[in-house]
C-alpha cells in the first residue's frame, strides 16, 4: 500500500514538474505553477484540511462538497467542511485553543470569514501568514478594479487572508407585491408604512442584519468619510439619523418589530412562504439562484439603493495554530482557480460573483466567464465601501440595547 502511495505521489510530482515546465510558455495561464506551490502540493498530498465555513445555505454546502471531490481527485487532499452556524464559533474555538496554550495542532485549518472576525483574529495575532503570495492563483485577483479584495472593512489584509468572492448588498422584493420598488431610505420608510408587516431585516448581530444597518448608516450620515475611521466619542451624534429611521420604521415592520428573523436564509424562507415581500443578501445573484432552484417565486427581483450598495469581499484565512497550512493553501489555490470561480458564479450552483480579473485569464478560461457574464445582473447604482470594523461592534451593541428587549 505504501509502495502504491509512493508511486502515486511520484507520478504526481512528475505531473507537476511537467506542468511547471510548460507554465512559462503561458505566462498568463489561469493556473500558474510556481516551484513553491509544487512543493506545497507535495506536502499537502494525503493530508486532511478542516475547512470551517458557514453552512446555513445548502447551495453553498453543495459547492464546497463539489470542491472537496475535485481537490481530493487532483491533489489527494481530503477537504472536510466543518459546518458552523456562525463563523464566530470557529473564531471562539481558535481563541480558546490559544487560551489553553495550544500553539500548534489546532482544530481549524482554513476558515471563511471577513470584517469583524478577521479583525478579531488579526489583532490577537492568531492568523498564519502572510501566505497569500505563496498561492499562485492569488495573482489573478482583480485588486485594482475591486479594492475590497485587499481591504477588508477598511483593514488592509496584508496577505493574511485571500479574497474568495465579492459581494454587494442587494435587496430582493416580490415584484407582484412591490410595484414601484423604493431606492432610497426615505421612500423605503414610506413603503413600509404603506404595507405594514411586510418588511424586516435579520436580527443583528447576524452579519446580514448588521450590514443592513451599516448600509442605512452610510446613506444617512452627512459625512460618509467619517465611518471609514475608527469609532469615537461622536458615535451617538454620527448614528442619530440611523436610529431615527429605525425608530420610525419599527412599528410597521414584520411582527411590529418585536421579532426579527435570525438570518438571511430565514428571511428568504419567510419571503418564500409569503410572510414578507422583501429579503436581502450579500450576493446580487441570490435571487436568480433561488428562483432557479424553485425556492422563491419567479416574480422576485433584486435592487439596491441609488445612493450606492455596500460592497465587500469574503476571504479565506489560515489560523496560526493550524495543523495543516500546506493543505489549506492547496485548497485555497484551487478555490481561486478560474474553473472553481466560474462554477461558484454560476446561478444554478451558488451565484457568488468572482474576484478574478477576467482580462488576465487564458483565452479558454475567459470564454467560460464570457458565457456567464451575460446572465449576471450587475444591478444599478454605485458601490459604497464598508465602515471600519469597530463600527460593527458598536452598532450591534447599541442595536441590542435599543431594540433587543421588546
Amino acid at each position, binding site marked *: 500500500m505504501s509502495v502504491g502511495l509512493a508511486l502515486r505521489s511520484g507520478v504526481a510530482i512528475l505531473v507537476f514538474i511537467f506542468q511547471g515546465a510548460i507554465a512559462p510558455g503561458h505566462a498568463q495561464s489561469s493556473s500558474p505553477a510556481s516551484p513553491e506551490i509544487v512543493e506545497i502540493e507535495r506536502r499537502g498530498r494525503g493530508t486532511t484540511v478542516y475547512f470551517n465555513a458557514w453552512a*446555513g445555505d445548502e447551495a453553498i454546502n453543495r459547492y464546497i462538497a463539489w470542491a472537496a471531490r475535485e481537490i481530493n481527485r487532483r491533489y489527494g487532499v481530503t477537504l472536510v467542511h466543518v459546518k458552523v452556524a456562525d463563523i464566530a464559533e470557529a473564531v471562539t474555538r481558535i481563541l480558546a485553543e490559544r487560551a489553553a496554550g495550544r500553539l500548534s495542532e489546532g482544530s481549524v485549518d482554513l476558515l471563511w470569514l471577513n470584517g469583524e472576525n478577521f479583525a478579531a483574529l488579526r489583532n490577537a495575532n492568531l492568523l498564519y501568514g502572510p501566505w497569500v503570495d505563496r498561492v499562485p492563483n492569488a495573482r489573478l485577483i482583480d485588486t485594482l478594479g475591486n479594492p475590497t479584495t485587499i481591504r477588508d472593512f477598511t483593514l488592509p489584509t496584508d496577505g493574511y487572508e485571500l479574497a474568495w468572492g465579492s459581494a454587494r448588498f442587494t435587496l430582493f422584493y416580490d415584484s407582484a407585491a412591490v410595484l414601484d420598488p423604493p431606492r432610497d431610505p426615505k421612500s423605503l420608510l414610506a413603503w413600509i408604512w404603506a404595507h405594514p408587516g411586510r418588511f424586516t431585516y435579520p436580527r443583528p448581530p447576524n452579519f446580514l442584519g448588521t450590514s443592513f444597518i451599516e448600509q442605512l448608516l452610510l446613506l444617512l450620515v452627512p459625512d460618509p468619510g467619517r465611518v471609514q475611521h475608527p469609532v469615537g466619542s461622536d458615535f451617538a451624534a454620527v448614528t442619530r439619523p440611523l436610529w431615527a429611521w429605525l425608530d420610525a420604521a419599527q412599528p410597521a415592520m414584520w411582527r411590529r418589530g418585536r421579532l426579527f428573523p435570525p438570518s438571511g436564509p430565514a428571511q428568504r424562507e419567510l419571503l418564500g412562504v409569503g410572510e414578507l415581500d422583501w429579503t436581502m443578501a450579500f450576493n446580487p445573484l441570490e435571487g436568480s439562484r433561488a428562483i432557479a432552484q424553485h425556492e422563491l417565486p419567479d416574480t422576485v427581483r433584486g435592487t439596491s439603493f441609488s445612493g450606492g450598495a455596500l460592497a465587500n469581499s469574503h476571504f479565506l484565512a489560515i489560523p496560526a495554530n493550524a495543523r495543516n497550512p500546506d493543505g489549506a493553501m492547496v485548497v485555497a489555490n484551487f478555490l481561486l482557480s478560474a474553473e472553481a470561480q466560474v462554477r461558484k458564479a454560476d446561478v444554478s450552483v451558488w451565484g457568488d460573483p468572482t474576484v478574478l480579473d477576467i482580462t488576465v485569464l487564458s483565452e479558454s478560461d475567459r470564454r467560460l466567464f464570457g458565457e456567464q457574464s451575460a446572465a449576471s445582473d450587475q444591478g444599478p447604482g454605485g458601490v459604497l465601501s464598508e465602515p471600519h470594523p469597530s463600527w460593527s461592534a458598536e452598532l450591534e451593541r447599541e442595536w441590542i440595547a435599543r431594540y433587543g428587549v421588546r
Partner: protein
Amino acid sequence: MKPVALALVFAFAGIPVLAGVGVTLVEAANPVAWKALLQYPGIGRTVAVSAWTGCVATIVALGLAHLTVGLAAAAARAERLRTLILPLIALPHLALAIGLVLVLSPSGLILRLLSPWATGFHLPPDWQTVQDPWGLSLILGLIVKETPFLVLMLLGARAQFPVDRLMLQSRSLGYGPMKAWWVSVAPLLQRRIRLPLTAVFVFAVTNVEMAIPLGPAMPPPLGVVVWQWFTASRLELRAQAFAGSVLLLVVALGALAAAWGGTCLARLVLRAYAESGHRELRAERPFRVLALLVGVPFTFAISAMAALALRAVSAMWRFPALVGDHLELRLVAQLAPSLKMALGSTVTLACSTAIAAIALVTLINESLIDDVRWRTRIGVLLFAPLLLPQLAFLFGLQSLLVRLGLDGTWVAVGWEHTLFELPYVWGLLAAARKQLDSRLILTARTLGAGGLRSWRAVTLPLLLRPTLLAGAVAFGVSAALYLPTLFAGGGRVMTVATEATSAASSGNLRLAAAYGAAQAFAPLIALLFATLIGRAAFSGRQGVPR
C-alpha cells in the same frame, strides 16, 4: 467486584461532571464579567422567561402524565400506552421544535389547513404565534416533549407497587376510580419519579435546543443568551458566558426550591381532598373531558412530524398550499452524501456508546444488587448530568478537554454521549433488575450453576427485553445530543444532530426539516429493531418482563 464497579462509575461519570462544574466556577470568578452580565440589556426578563417557561411546562407535563397514566390504568391500557409513547420519547428535541414551528407559525400547517376557506387568508397574517414574548410556544413544545417521558417513568414506578390491590381497596370503600387513583396510587408514584422529574425540570428551565426555534427572542431565555456568548467571537464575552452559566445554575436551583415549596402546597391540597370524604363517583365526566387533553401532546407531535416531511419535500412552501408546487425529493437526493456521512457517524456513535453504557450499568447492577444504599447514591451520581444545566459543566469540561488535547476526538465525544445515556439506561435497567424474582436465580444456584453461569442462563435472558429497550433509548439520546457533540467534537464530529442544529440556528428551515426528519427517523428504527428482536426472542412465552 464492588470496589471496581464503584471506581469505574466515579472515574467515568463523576469526575468529568465535577471537573466541569469546578472549571466553570473558577472561570466565573471574575467581577468584571458579573458586572457586564448584570448590566446586559433585559437580563431580568431573560431570567424570568427561563424560570416561567420551565415551571409552567413542567407542572402541566406532570399533570398530564399523571392523568394519562391514571386513565390508562382505569381502562387497563397501560401496556398499550407504553407502546404508544416510546416513539414520542425517541423524538429528538430539535426535530420536534422545528416541526412545531412549521405547525404553529402563521404560515404553518394549522392555518394552511384552515385557509382560505375558513379564515379568508390568502397571505399569512402577521401574528406572533411562535417565539411569542410569553414563551407560550416554547411551553407547548416542552410539554409535548416531556409528557411522554414522565408517563414512561410513572409506568415504571407503577410496576413497583401493588396498584391493582390499592385500587380495589379504595373502590371497595366506595370511591370513584379517578379519586381512588389520585389519593391512593398517584402519591406513591410521584415519590418514585422525583429524580427524573427534577431532570425534566432543569432541562425545561435551561435548555437551548428547543428555546432557539420556539422560545422568545427579544430577549431570549437565559440558556440561549449564555450559549450565544460562548459562541461569540469576542474573547471578553467568555468570562461573561461562564458567569452566565453559574447564574443559570442559580436560576435552576431557585426554581427547584420554588418547586419544592409547590409540592408541599400540593400535598396539603391533596390531603384536604382525601380527607373530605367525598366519594366522587360522579366526578367521572370531567375526567373524560380531560382525557381529551391527554391527546394534545400526541397530536402536536404527529403534526410536527408531518410538517417536517411536507417542508422537506417542498422546494417552496407558498401559503396557503399544503404541498409546494415543486414537490421534489431533489433536496433529499442532493443531501444524500452528507446525510449518509452524518447518519453513519450518528449510528456508529449511538451504537458503541449504548453498548458501553449498558455494559457499565450491568456491571454496577450485578455487583451492587443487594446494596440498596449504594444503589441510590449511584443513581443520583449517574443522574448528575441531567440534574445540572448542560451549560453549567459542558464548557468547563470542554476547556479541560482542550488542555488535555482530547477535544475533537471520537473518544471524547463518545465519553460525553455515554455520560448522558447512563441515567436513562440505569433508570430502565436497575428497575428491571430489581423486579426480577430472586428465587429464579436462587434456584439456578441450588442446581449447581456458578455466579456467571446463573447470570448467563437466567438473568441475562430475563433482562434481554429491558436491555434492548434501554439500548434503543440510549441510541435515541445519543442521536439527539447537540451541545456535547459540538464541543467535545471540536466541530469535527458531524452527526445528524449537529447538522440539523447548524441548519436550524442559521434559520434555514427547509434544510433543518430534512435533517430533522432523518434525526427523528434513526431512533425510531432502533426502537423498532429492539422491539422486534425482543418479540422474536420470546415469542410464545408468557410472563417474561417486557
